[in-house]
């Protein structure tokens, strides 16, 4: 199957989606932070919360980034299998904590880093093993 070919161009696109994904989450976090004191008690609070968050331009920047990620990701998925794309895309599990430390001044303990490492290994294993299903799908 030619679909499984992983070219340098595809890898570059995947790395780019990693960076975009990280950027998206950073923007969302920034947007959500403006409403951090909010507590949802009654149903209408949901709308108040959302209107507050959506008035932040960080959120719109994040959404723009989501659309861009979606376009690139859809294109990649039509070229290669999910099982090949995800291990490279899961690089954002490292990028996001790094961005959190540098730009959001969050603290990450050794215990949490080891947790992240387990998740990363797990994500790679889960997606690698899905290669076996390709024949039954086509």
């Amino acid at each position, binding site marked *: 199957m030619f679909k499984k070919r992983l070219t340098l161009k595809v890898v570059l696109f995947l790395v780019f989606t990693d960076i975009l994904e990280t950027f998206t989450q950073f923007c969302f976090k920034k947007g959500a932070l403006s409403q951090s004191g909010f507590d949802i008690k009654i149903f209408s609070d949901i709308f108040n919360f959302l209107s507050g968050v959506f008035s932040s331009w960080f959120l719109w920047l994040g959404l723009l980034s989501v659309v861009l990620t979606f376009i690139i990701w859809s294109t990649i998925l039509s070229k290669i299998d999910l099982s090949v794309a995800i291990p490279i895309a899961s690089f954002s599990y490292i990028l996001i*904590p790094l961005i959190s430390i540098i730009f*959001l001044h*969050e603290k990450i303990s050794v215990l*949490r880093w080891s947790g992240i490492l*387990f*998740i990363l*290994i*797990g*994500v790679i294993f889960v997606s690698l093993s899905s290669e076996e299903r390709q024949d039954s799908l086509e």
Partner: protein
Amino acid sequence: MKEGLTFIFFLIVLTSICDTINQLFLKSAINSLSLASPITIIKIIKFIIALIRVPRVWISFLFSVLSLCIWLFVLSKVDLNFAFSIDSMHYIFIAFASKQILKEKVSFKRWLGTISIIIGIILVSLS
């Protein structure tokens, strides 16, 4: 903070479920289309237009909006790196969902990966 954290954890599970449904519909919609080999900008635009016309993409879109709204609330309460790590739970859901819906066999490697993600989530939650 403690009981609040349980609620946040529940919300992250909810976004993960929404993400899983979203991904399943999206992948199924994309599978129904094809993109010929040399990728050009024009082809990508045509592909996206064709994709938007598939009704399943709209279901996928609906769930991603839902997921986004819950996600934003989660982010307003907890650290980004914490939330994003826990959100990796959707890999577990996707593995189970594709087993149920696509009738795949769950290989040893996938179980191993799933267990590793669960250990990771527990470690991140403990910290």
